[in-house]
């Protein structure tokens, strides 16, 4: 409008400034109050995803009224309308690009959340360093979910992913090559720290690592037992029911890679 005035060279006194009539202001105010009530009233019903959509639609309607009448954009110059609306165009770009980035990265999908929950649950087994049919069954479930990729379902170290690994994954059915013995405490140590291509599974609760150790020793021809000295060396206080170990909050990179490759299979 200012430009028009410049170029027409006409008297600026002709330029009529729009004044919002008081009655109009009060009408807009009543509509805004009514829709605030609607927003609150509708929130008590459960329409699933529609609740959010309705709330945003009502908010946008209210915002439009404020912009058009209270802020006078309806009567303002086209330039100002374009300037203000441009901001929302850029907000849209901002949202689309950020959402695209977040949502295509698999590590940001809440799947990881479920994993953390299992890693910090309450103790399921008393004295998990003792082998029982229950803890062995739990170990089998964990093994079938997380270890078969490399170690194979029969524990022979011939899982699908073993082809690319050197040295080969541990064959639990063989008795040779166990420098530190085939005892559960030793296997727990390997699960905790990792060994060669074997990643550390320190984020698993200690009792899950013991469950896995009890299960894999059952593959072999013989079952070696831990002596009290072995247990003490492994940090177990046999007078207690649970292992007083702080579960690591960080996830080793290898472990994440393995999880991701498993998830993508």
């Amino acid at each position, binding site marked *: 409008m200012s430009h028009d005035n410049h170029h027409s060279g006409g008297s600026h006194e002709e330029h009529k400034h729009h004044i919002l009539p008081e009655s109009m202001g009060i009408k807009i105010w009543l509509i805004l109050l009514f829709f605030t009530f609607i927003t609150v009233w509708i929130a008590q019903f459960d329409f699933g995803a529609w609740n959010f959509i309705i*709330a945003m639609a009502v908010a946008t309607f209210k915002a439009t009224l404020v912009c058009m009448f*209270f802020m006078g954009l309806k009567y303002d*110059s086209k*330039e*100002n309308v374009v*300037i203000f609306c441009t901001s929302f165009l850029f907000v849209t770009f901002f949202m689309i690009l950020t959402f695209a980035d977040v949502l295509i990265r698999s590590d940001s999908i809440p799947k990881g959340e479920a994993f953390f929950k299992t890693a910090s649950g309450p103790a399921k087994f008393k004295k998990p360093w003792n082998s029982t049919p229950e803890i062995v069954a739990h170990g089998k479930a964990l093994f079938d979910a997380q270890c078969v990729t490399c170690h194979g379902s029969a524990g022979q170290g011939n899982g699908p992913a073993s082809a690319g690994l050197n040295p080969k994954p541990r064959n639990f059915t063989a008795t040779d090559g166990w420098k530190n013995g085939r005892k559960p405490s030793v296997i727990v140590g390997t699960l905790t720290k990792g060994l060669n291509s074997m990643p550390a599974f320190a984020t698993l609760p200690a009792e899950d690592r013991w469950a896995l150790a009890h299960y894999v020793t059952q593959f072999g021809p013989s079952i070696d037992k831990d002596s009290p000295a072995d247990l003490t060396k492994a940090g177990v206080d046999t007078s207690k029911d649970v292992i007083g170990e702080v579960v690591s909050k960080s996830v080793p990179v290898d472990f994440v890679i393995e999880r991701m490759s498993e998830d993508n299979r």
Partner: protein
Amino acid sequence: MGNKNHHAHHFESAAAEFEASKQGLWVFLVNEVLFFAGLFVAYAIYRILNPDLMHEAHKYLNWKLGATNTVVLICSSLTMALGVTAAQKGQQKKSANLILVTILLACVFLVIKYFEYMHKIHEGLLPGGLFSYHEPIHPKAPQFFSVYFVLTGLHGIHVIGGIVVLAWIYMRTLRGEFTDKYFTPVECTGLYWHFVDLVWIYLFPLLYLAS
């Protein structure tokens, strides 16, 4: 800034000066929209990644206080709009009173916000590492309160800034600096104040009613 009927020498006319000032304010509001957009996008992503949490966390906010504050701000937007109308008509006394009511409503908003914040602080519903609620809600609940405090805090700073500018405009109106020919600062302050209301129109359903 020109005063009364005089305009600065680099403007062709008072009308051109008014249009330029107002356009400058619209550009400032574009900047404000994008400023708040960063936080709104953060909120949206947080919501997408933690759908279950949004259902839980909003229960710890008092929607009645949020709704009251929404009504307070809408009323302040009306008194502001009527104050601008009065200024444009040259009714200075009426304009001053309406601006004063707008300031008082803004203060009511802040007092309610103060009680909300005090309650949160007392309960330990605080951002990030400060979170110390007596019972576990959700592992990501501290992040919700980070989003809550930063969004409402930034909005609160805008309300405080609005009160300062409104007080300045109120004093100038009382001094009789504005006429039906010159009311640029009143109208521009009005635009800013309505923007503060706009942000809250979205914040209220997003934070207090999210489910």
